[in-house]
């Protein structure tokens, strides 16, 4: 796995931050200078040392932040899977490995810094050759493919906040259909005020906690007031079981199955709100593909963005699983610590889900001391993880993501205990 999260830019650092409930949300001076209503957010910081380790001077001169985050996380995941960085010859191409690495908002940073001003000044000749490969929608996957000599499918999906989780479902399908042995899958998102401006204008960001950044993202809380924007990347290496066993590398978890769908923006669903029937269909489809019953879900890593949608998400889970009160699975939200990383969210949160299964813990969902009364009416408060729980009883976890467009995705992970 590879992760560039606002509260940890390595798997080890991210795990510790999750366990300890460490927030990566800070005051962002750029947003204050531009008079955003929400002036806090989370942005991972990649050191010059890491940049210079993986990228040439030439490559770093024109690099969009989502390509940077996605590329570093991709390399991390590749190396973590026990594979080596490839050489330059055609023999290095790995025809059995591919990547699906998408984003929600792509390269607004470079668009604003370079494309728009140079073009409007009648000076397009000064843009240089690297702009297109940094700003095309498939930039992150294309870059990872070049760094790792990938020869299978290389593409960037996009389904808003569902992007990262959807890519994992798609990668799973590619491998199980026999078209690839290994797929890097996840999501990335760069930092740009221009990517966030529309969210601020829609008033879906929390504007009430500028003086207290670490308390601003409050999934499941009675005082949740909007999401906090974030960015970064999270990538899993999915591999065919036979291939993984033959390589004798560590296996973190098993993907039992997953599903994606859309609610059709009907039945209560709109561009920005979910059709509850669609959400429940997606969860049930994921369970069916995984060949497990709803009672086997031990914990849920929710989408849970710290908005008015949180209670509805819990309700949809209770209906899809037919479990409520004390019988509901444990539930937490990574977004409480890192905000909503948009296209990267699903990827980063799937990394968190797998880490919890592999390392026998559940991380706290911070900032929900005051549970939303609707949620308290649906599930027992003790099912909401508010302090780290160390347990090896969590065998199966569900990860869900729901995005603008009324799109849904759900992946079921099982602890790997066969070593």
């Amino acid at each position, binding site marked *: 796995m590879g992760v560039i999260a606002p509260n940890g830019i390595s798997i080890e650092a991210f795990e510790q931050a999750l366990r300890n409930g460490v927030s990566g949300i800070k005051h962002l001076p750029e947003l204050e200078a531009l008079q955003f209503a929400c002036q806090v957010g989370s942005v991972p910081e990649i050191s010059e040392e890491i940049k210079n380790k993986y990228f040439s001077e030439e490559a770093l001169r024109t690099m969009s932040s989502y390509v940077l985050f996605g590329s570093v996380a991709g390399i991390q995941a590749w190396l973590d899977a026990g594979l080596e960085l490839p050489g330059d010859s055609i023999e290095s191409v790995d025809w059995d490995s591919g990547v699906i690495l998408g984003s929600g908002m792509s390269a607004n940073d470079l668009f604003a810094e370079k494309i728009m001003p140079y073009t409007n000044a009648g000076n397009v000749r000064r843009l240089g*050759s690297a702009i297109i490969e940094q700003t095309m929608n498939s930039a992150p996957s294309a870059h990872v493919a070049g760094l790792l000599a990938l020869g299978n499918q290389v593409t960037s999906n996009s389904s808003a906040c569902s992007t990262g989780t959807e890519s994992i479902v798609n990668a799973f399908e590619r491998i199980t259909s026999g078209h690839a042995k290994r797929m890097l899958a996840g999501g990335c998102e760069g930092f740009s005020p221009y990517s966030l401006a529309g969210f601020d204008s829609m008033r879906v960001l929390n504007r009430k906690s500028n003086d207290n950044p670490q308390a601003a993202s409050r999934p499941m809380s009675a005082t949740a007031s909007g999401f906090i924007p974030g960015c970064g990347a999270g990538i899993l290496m999915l591999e065919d079981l036979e291939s993984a066993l033959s390589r004798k590398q560590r296996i973190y978890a098993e993907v039992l199955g997953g599903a994606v769908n859309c609610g059709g923006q009907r039945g209560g669903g709109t561009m920005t709100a979910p059709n509850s029937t669609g959400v429940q269909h997606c969860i049930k489809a994921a369970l069916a593909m995984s060949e497990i019953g709803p009672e086997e879900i031990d914990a849920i890593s929710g989408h849970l963005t710290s908005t008015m949608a949180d209670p509805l998400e819990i309700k949809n889970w209770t209906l899809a699983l037919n479990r409520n009160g004390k019988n509901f699975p444990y539930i937490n939200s990574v977004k409480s610590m890192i905000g909503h990383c948009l296209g990267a969210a699903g990827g980063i949160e799937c990394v968190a889900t797998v880490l919890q299964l592999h390392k026998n813990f559940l991380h706290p969902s911070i900032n929900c001391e005051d549970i939303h009364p609707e949620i308290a009416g649906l599930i027992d408060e003790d099912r909401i993880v508010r302090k780290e729980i160390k347990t090896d009883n969590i065998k199966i976890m569900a990860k869900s993501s729901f995005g603008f467009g009324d799109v849904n995705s759900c992946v079921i992970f099982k602890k790997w205990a066969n070593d």
Partner: protein
Amino acid sequence: MGTSETPISREAVQAKVLEVVKPFVKDTALLETITDKTDLINDLKVNSARFIDILLDLEDAFKIQINDKEADSILTIGDAVRIIMSKQTHN
């Protein structure tokens, strides 16, 4: 470098050209045996898609403009030095 008052020597121009070209050359050892005839793409293996970036960097380094016809004529290190030298103004 290259003000309107002081012409720069050919050696200095070549040194600066090599400095500009260096980030685009994968095997920098090739820069140690440069001649005027060293071809940027065929000998130094510069990615042809990046050629425009080298031209932009040369324009910035020498404060000159290289038009399309001049750009098309630059195949070797010697060509680049020749174009730059021709744009130097003299007292």
